[in-house]
């Protein structure tokens, strides 16, 4: 036991104390200190530090610091800081407390050295985060939150079952690399998969992120899925299934994103696609690929926050985040536009931006798998389409000229500061990649800025932009209109409920007619009337008699 304070405890303590501060401004400012304080506890600690807590007949390693957990904890701290800064205008204590608990749980989970601790924090992120959705306080957000929490709890339960089985099989709950050779590890794998939004398990993400408050979405986008990527990288690195799962994940959201009207949902699809890159990296499992995954997760958290923040700022000023209702805001929100474009260029992997130096690692590592490499290239074009072009274009230019656009103010100062901070980081990482490479788990001897690489990347991107421009010119680019798109969630939001209600109606009908007939017969024969009060002593005694009868019958058998 060292004298290191667990960083997650800093968040939890702050979550307990924060609501007691009466002044909203003061509270918002003080909260900014929390991620800094928490990061300070592990920032300069040596790798290998751990805490052991005895529980049951085993020992739990509730804190483990190594290269992998360090990077994730660092970027989570950054994300928590950005979210809190961006949300400085919020007075809702519930949302602040859940942000703190959510961030604290995510960081705690990253430091978990055993599965039980991981499970505790895993559920912590699930339960805390749902309040970011419910904080919107509409009926729709409540229903969405319920669907979200169901998926999250299902993941937690599967994890728990997996842990129990794993403990049963091996007698250990240590969280180390696993192989998919038993029910236990499959359960854990699928639990991770739900949180990582694997194809067909992904719907909770696109369903819920647009439903959160505008600040809540920024927070949500950073933690849950990246925690799952961390868990996969720790537990299932080199599992071949992941390569193909990841490849599918990079591709299919691209199509949905291209035709989605709600911009926060577009970003959610984009998030899913980006996770695909990381999952491919985990699946390949070579040091280069894992470094790529970690670097990509790091860069991704920052530019995805930036994009969500810019959409949030527009939503804050105009009251909508739907592409069909927006456009032409470049004149009234120029700063937001510039920052949004920085985020868009980062995610599209323009050279000198963070996406470029991170994604390249994964793409290079995927070269032995030809089709996967190909999928990643196409997906990169897709990223450019929906996140690089569609997001900034539909908000700031689009089908409206600046004259038609509603006259709104520039985003509030604290939002601009938060976005500038994120944008600065995007550029800094892109220009000086060696600082990020230095903290990755494996030594990196990769050079992103070769002439060939820069040129090919620019060719890919600019010809895609050219295609966009030409399609636009000839009116072939799909215009946005108010609509939603069916997705896999149609199954459980529409099909199954209808099916069940129909079946239930049938069964009720059948039962009623049967029961009606039986009662009629019984009444006629026995002139028996059912007791009015279901819990009358008569009924109770009847049950006793039945039960005693059964037991006695068995006794005579």
């Amino acid at each position, binding site marked *: 036991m060292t004298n290191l304070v667990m960083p997650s405890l800093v968040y939890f303590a702050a979550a307990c104390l924060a609501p007691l501060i009466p002044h909203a401004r003061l509270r918002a400012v003080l909260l900014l200190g929390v991620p800094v304080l928490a990061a300070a506890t592990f920032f300069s600690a040596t790798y290998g530090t751990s805490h052991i807590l005895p529980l049951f007949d085993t020992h739990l390693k509730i804190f483990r610091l190594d290269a992998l957990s360090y990077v994730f904890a660092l970027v989570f701290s950054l994300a928590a800081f950005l979210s809190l800064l961006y949300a400085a205008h919020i007075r809702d204590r519930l949302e602040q407390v859940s942000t703190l608990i959510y961030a604290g749980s995510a960081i705690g989970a990253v430091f978990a050295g055993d599965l039980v601790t991981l499970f505790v924090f895993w559920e912590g992120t699930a339960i805390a985060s749902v309040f970011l959705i419910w904080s919107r306080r509409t009926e729709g957000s409540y229903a969405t939150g319920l669907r979200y929490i169901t998926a999250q709890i299902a993941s937690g339960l599967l994890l728990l079952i997996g842990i129990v089985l794993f403990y049963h099989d091996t007698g250990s709950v240590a969280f180390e690399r696993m192989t998919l050779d038993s029910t236990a590890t499959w359960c854990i794998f699928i639990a991770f998969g739900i949180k990582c939004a694997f194809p067909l398990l992904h719907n909770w993400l696109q369903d819920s992120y647009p439903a959160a408050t505008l600040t809540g979405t920024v927070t949500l986008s950073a933690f849950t899925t990246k925690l799952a990527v961390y868990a996969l990288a720790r537990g299932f690195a080199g599992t071949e299934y992941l390569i193909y799962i990841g490849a599918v994940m990079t591709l299919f959201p691209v199509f949905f994103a291209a035709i989605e009207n709600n911009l926060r949902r577009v970003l959610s699809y984009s998030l899913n696609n980006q996770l695909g890159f990381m999952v491919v990296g985990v699946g390949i499992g070579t040091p280069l690929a894992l470094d790529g995954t970690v670097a990509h997760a790091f860069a991704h958290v920052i530019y995805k926050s930036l994009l969500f923040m810019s959409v949030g700022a527009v939503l804050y000023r105009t009251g909508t985040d739907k592409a069909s209702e927006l456009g032409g805001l470049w004149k009234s929100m120029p700063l937001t536009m510039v920052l949004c474009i920085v985020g868009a260029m980062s995610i599209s992997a323009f050279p000198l931006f963070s996406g470029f130096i991170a994604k390249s690692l994964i793409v290079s590592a995927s070269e032995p798998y030809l089709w996967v490499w190909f999928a990643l290239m196409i997906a990169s074009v897709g990223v450019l389409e929906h996140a690089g072009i569609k997001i900034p274009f539909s908000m700031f230019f689009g089908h409206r000229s600046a004259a038609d656009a509603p006259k709104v103010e520039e985003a509030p100062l604290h939002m601009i500061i938060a976005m500038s901070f994120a944008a600065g980081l995007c550029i800094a990482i892109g220009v000086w990649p060696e600082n990020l490479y230095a903290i990755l788990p494996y030594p990196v001897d990769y050079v992103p800025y070769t002439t060939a690489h820069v040129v090919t990347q620019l060719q890919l991107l600019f010809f895609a932009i050219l295609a966009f421009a030409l399609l636009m010119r000839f009116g072939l680019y799909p215009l946005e209109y108010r609509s939603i798109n069916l997705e896999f969630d149609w199954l459980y939001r529409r099909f199954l409920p209808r099916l069940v209600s129909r079946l239930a109606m049938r069964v009720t009908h059948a039962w009623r007619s049967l029961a009606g007939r039986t009662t009629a017969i019984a009444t006629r024969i026995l002139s028996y009337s059912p007791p009015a009060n279901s819990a009358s002593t008569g009924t*109770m005694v009847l049950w006793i008699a039945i039960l005693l009868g059964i037991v006695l019958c068995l006794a005579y058998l």
Partner: protein
Amino acid sequence: MPQFIAQHLPILQVIVPLIAAPFCALISVRNGAWWLAFVTSLVTFAISVLLFAATFDGEIISYHLGGWAPPIGIEYRVDMLNAFVLTIVSGTGVLTLLYARASVAHEVDAKQHGLFYTAFVLCLTGLLGVTITGDAFNVFVFLEISSLATYAIVASGAKTDRRALTAAYNYLIMGTIGATFFVIGLGLLYMITGTLNMADLAQRLLEHGDSRTLRMGYAFILVGLGLKLAMFPLHQWLPNAYTYAPSAVSAFLSATATKVAIYVLLRFLFSVFGFSIPFEADILFLVVLPLALAGSLIGAYIATYQDNLKRLLAYSSISQIGAMLIGVSMLSASGLMAAIIHLFNHAVTKASLYMVAGAYAKEAGTVSIRELRGVGRDMPFTTAAFVVGGMSLIGIPLTVGFISKWYLVEAALMRGWWPVVIVIVVSSLIALIYVGKFIEAAYMHPAPQGIIRREAPLTMLIPMWIFAGLSLFFGINSSLTSEAAARAAQGLVAASSLIWQ
């Protein structure tokens, strides 16, 4: 500790509250009855703790009443299991009495307080007596003492709701039938063996072997106790009784009465019958296990529909009792341990939850979930206690509920009973719904117009939070409870003739 007291601990455990009870009715000073009852419960708790400490390393204390040695005389016999249950009962007694002062003053007529506390202490006496005695007929006598007193204290909720009278009356009818079945079963056993001392009974039943009479006796005792412990579908007396009783009584009974009945069931199944003939185990698999599974699901399911918070908790109790019976039906040391630890954990959790409900009844004047909307803001500490208890009901880690579920699932897996694991998980999921329903109403909705609610007084908050704190403390550090439960379970298995373990 003087030798004199150390020597007589087992009898003092029962006799102290028995003698104190009548004096409660005599004292006419304001709050005098409460003070006497409270001091008495403190003394009994101290005695239980001493007994617990004395038996923790496996010693068995035997006390002969009237100097007559068993099997002729009555014997009080304390081992790990009894001592554990005694501690639960008397500890709950202390805290509920502390809580009762404000709560009962609100819910029971002032002029009935003397008699109320008399009945309360008598109920405590009965429950302690049932637990401590080693004599089968004595179990019946104490069971009746506690039950009769219980009917009275349940009925005393009539000031706030007249339905308490009907509830108490139904409870009386059902309780009497249960006790009668139990005594019929005892009579049949006495026919076979001619003895009533439990240890002696076990010995002679083993020698006797299988017979119709024995099977009948087993059946009657099982069903009788099933009624007392509210085994599904014999639970129907429980929801009304717990709903309309004064809140302190609900808290006390939910933590003790059914738990003691489960203790008696364990004692009879393992120590007396001991599964010497296959029939006994068969019944457990064929009848008790399915009913326990059904109970744990249906109880939870019905709970999700309740608007009355106390009734919701009552149905949740039925579900949790189902979980304990699942543990018992596994007929393994780990299953028993899970049942015993759940017995403690559920007692702690449910007591705190009923105390919360009582605080609402006093301060908000209602226990209807619909009318309690937004109560989380007006009564933050009380509602926070509910959140802790609710998490424990669901089985979220760091609460005792998780510990119970963990051991239960592990025991089921050891037996390879997959469907049982699923039932346990599903019933926790349903628990999530009914707990979530209240928490959502308490925190996410605005309060109804024109309602003034204040935080509950400290005398209610302190015991409530002691229970809530315990359910967190033992959820984090369960070494004491799991150790005690494991030893108690081993003792029971060792006493029985379970050969397939």
